[in-house]
């Protein structure tokens, strides 16, 4: 006690300003020697140029100066709870054995442990309140702030879980039939625990909010850095485009650069399926919505209402091709006409007033004739009016196709 009183300044300076160490300087040598003698400091390593102030002394200094550099943790609370259980157990053993003095001492001890427990919990809650209000402002790095906040949350969570076990029924069970212990445990301790619990839960919520805010701040910081860095880069290098070799480096590291190209999925609605009516209506509505306002009136598209009739299943007669029709008529009339005189394809072309060009008619007629021949139909003999082309040897120009029975009969 005398050593503590004598070296208070040195110990306070060490615990509050030098992280709990006293430097081994010529000025401090005598102090260190005296404190070591009373086991108030110790050498962590003989090679280190300082001695470490003992933890109990540090805690005492922190408590006296109200600085919470070295704070009680959930571990300390847990130790105190265990200690309380042991003291209470010892009290009952002493009382049951009739050791009244020992029982009284254990009761005082229990009182001290309970006071210590309440005090430790209060200190922790105060520390959390400090964190919440300062948002770890003493720490400049945002990552470290997040880490500190997480630790505080873990700590608060641990204490909360510990307090879960100290239910009124458990404390009642611990106190058994001892009126003194019932008073200490179920009144004094239970009342304080209830109040501290409420503060702790509040602190947990606020710390969670703080953490979310810090994480958001960190994301914003990160995003701002990306925006500013890139835009400065674009200003310095206006034509900059990242090279494709980045993709080789990104392999296995940044999947964001390997995003798939949109896969176009085309589907055709079954228009006969009434269940797809809704989808079809939606498609039509979207298509109409895409048109610029007035697009329909500006174009030549009529906006008049058109009545739509369901023609599914109806039969529609397809108009025959005029050329096909003329050929049909020609071959139908040919057997009769040819009995009177030979029939020229060119004459027929003009008589039938065929719309297609003459060469089309001639080729179609020749093709139709050959097809009928192939089909084994009874056809009128034909003769090609042709002449040799002067320029190209062997090439013959067909001038007309004449259907005649005369040559057939002669043959």
């Amino acid at each position: 006690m005398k050593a503590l009183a004598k070296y208070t300044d040195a110990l306070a300076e060490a615990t509050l300003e030098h992280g709990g160490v006293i430097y081994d300087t010529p000025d401090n040598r005598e102090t260190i020697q005296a404190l070591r003698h009373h086991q108030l400091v110790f050498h962590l390593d003989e090679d280190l140029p300082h001695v470490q102030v003992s933890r109990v002394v540090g805690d005492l200094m922190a408590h006296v100066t109200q600085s919470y550099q070295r704070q009680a943790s959930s571990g300390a609370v847990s130790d105190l709870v265990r200690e309380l259980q042991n003291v209470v157990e010892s009290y009952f053993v002493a009382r049951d054995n009739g050791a009244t003095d020992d029982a009284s001492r254990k009761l005082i001890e229990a009182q001290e442990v309970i006071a210590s427990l309440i005090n430790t919990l209060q200190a922790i809650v105060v520390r959390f309140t400090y964190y919440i209000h300062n948002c770890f402002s003493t720490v400049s790095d945002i990552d470290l702030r997040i880490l500190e906040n997480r630790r505080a949350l873990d700590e608060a969570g641990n204490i909360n879980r510990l307090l879960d076990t100290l239910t009124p029924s458990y404390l009642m069970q611990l106190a058994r039939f001892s009126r003194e212990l019932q008073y200490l445990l179920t009144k004094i301790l239970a009342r304080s625990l209830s109040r501290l619990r409420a503060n702790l839960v509040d602190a947990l919520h606020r710390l969670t909010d703080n953490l979310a805010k810090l994480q958001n701040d960190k994301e914003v910081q990160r995003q701002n850095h990306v925006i500013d860095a890139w835009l400065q880069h674009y200003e310095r290098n206006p034509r900059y485009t990242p090279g494709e070799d980045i993709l080789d480096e990104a392999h296995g590291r940044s999947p964001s650069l390997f995003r798939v190209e949109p896969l176009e999925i085309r589907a055709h609605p079954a228009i006969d399926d009434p269940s797809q009516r809704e989808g079809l209506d939606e498609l039509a509505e979207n298509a109409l919505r895409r048109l610029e306002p007035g697009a329909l009136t500006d174009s030549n598209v009529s906006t008049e209402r058109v009545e739509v009739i369901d023609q599914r299943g109806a039969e529609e007669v397809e108009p025959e091709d005029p050329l096909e029709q003329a050929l049909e008529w020609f071959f139908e009339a040919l057997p009769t006409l040819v009995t009177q005189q030979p029939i020229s394809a060119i004459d027929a072309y003009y008589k039938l007033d065929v719309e297609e060009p003459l060469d089309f008619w001639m080729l179609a007629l020749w093709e139709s004739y050959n097809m009928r021949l192939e089909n084994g139909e009874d056809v009128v003999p034909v003769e090609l009016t042709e002449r040799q082309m002067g320029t190209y040897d062997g090439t013959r120009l067909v001038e007309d196709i004449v259907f005649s029975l005369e040559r057939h009969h002669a043959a």
Partner: protein
Amino acid sequence: MSYDPRFAAAIEGLLRGEVLCPVSAKEAHEYLSTLEGQDRVSHYLAEIGHGLEQTRDGSGYYCVYLDTESRGVRHRIRHQFESAVRDWEALLRWLRLSRQASPSSQPLKVKDVVRESEWLAAIENSSMMQEELEVIATRFQVQSQSRDAKVRLRHLLEKLCKLGYLVAIDSSGAIYQATGKWSLLQDQLEFVMAREGIVAEEREAALNEPRQEGLFLGTS
């Protein structure tokens, strides 16, 4: 196997190249946030050489090519990269503009709400922001006959909706919400800037500081 509309919506969205987030595809995102959903979708995609990925902030899911050795896939990846890179400057300028236009002075991120009226009020009060809006429109090749900031802003908002960065959340098209595609952009930009050694000026100055100090001390 029975038909599961959430599975179908997730697969279809992913194959369309979308980033599925709580804003763009709430149900599909919820489904992908379950272990069962992730497992089923990953297995399905793996069979066609694709994989399921998540943005770093966890806000969105997207589909990637797994077989990056195939020539056809490499071509598609290159094509996709080239087309993404073309928009980067305009998107970054838009993010800087969002920082100026938002009441919190924070750049746009997933789930943020963009109210056309608020942005317009901020832009109309600042000639610098109007100029920036014009630059963004040019970079995006959003041509407009009108020099009116309102028309230009509307065109840009529509463009961003088309690109999947915003979703209109009211029928009049005056209120939008940011999607998880901004998170994907952030991931891409961060990777490329780290590879290319792109740093902001103040950070660059901080990195050079010890060397400059060394010059003064003559220890360089």
